[in-house]
């Protein structure tokens, strides 16, 4: 059973059409939840770390939120340059320092 599940697998938006990506997780003790952006053939780019339920972080058109079971990445008025795969990862207290990733959501924003 996957510990980190991201949905949807793929999302197509019109420029300016806001939406949310979901990351649900099942871990015994969450040290942190991480969001990354990955462009094709490139390494993941760090976006946010969230540590406790209720926490929120923002960066430009992106806002990440965290509950005890899931995290959302809200994208407000997206632009074509926001097109990428968005990866969610969790780090557990019992699992040391490894990041456990979901499969990602592939986002395409069309003009």
């Amino acid at each position, binding site marked *: 059973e996957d510990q980190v599940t991201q949905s949807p697998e793929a999302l197509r938006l019109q420029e300016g059409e806001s939406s949310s990506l979901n990351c649900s997780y099942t871990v015994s003790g969450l040290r942190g939840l991480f969001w990354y952006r990955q462009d094709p053939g490139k390494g993941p*780019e760090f976006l946010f770390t969230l540590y406790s339920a209720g926490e929120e972080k923002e960066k430009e058109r992106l806002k990440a939120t965290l509950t005890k079971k899931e995290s959302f990445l809200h994208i407000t008025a997206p632009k074509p340059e926001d097109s990428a795969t968005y990866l969610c990862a969790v780090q557990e207290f019992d699992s040391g320092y490894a990041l456990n990733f979901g499969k990602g959501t592939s986002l395409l924003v069309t003009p």
Partner: protein
Amino acid sequence: DAGVTQSPTHLIKTRGQQVTLRCSPKSGHDTVSWYQQALGQGPQFIFQYYEEEERQRGNFPDRFSGHQFPNYSSELNVNALLLGDSALYLCASSSRTVTYEQYFGPGTRLTVT
């Protein structure tokens, strides 16, 4: 401020051969982790090096080994390559003071034929 660098960018090897990938961490970082990312999948943790020792290992066979040097740079070695080892290999660095935030390099694309 130099970020994480990896070399080479691309590599093509034949089944059964051995390969070495290299990583230099972000300035100020002393911990290096390696991940394998298959096409369409999220990265999978291979191992982490700190103070020149393997601190944690994921579910990968002994064919995968590594090393960390006194300047914190690291190598990933894979022996007896299999076709299934074809993937993007990612290096991530972090600081012992903020160990949980890992910053990734551009990756090395390994193709095994």
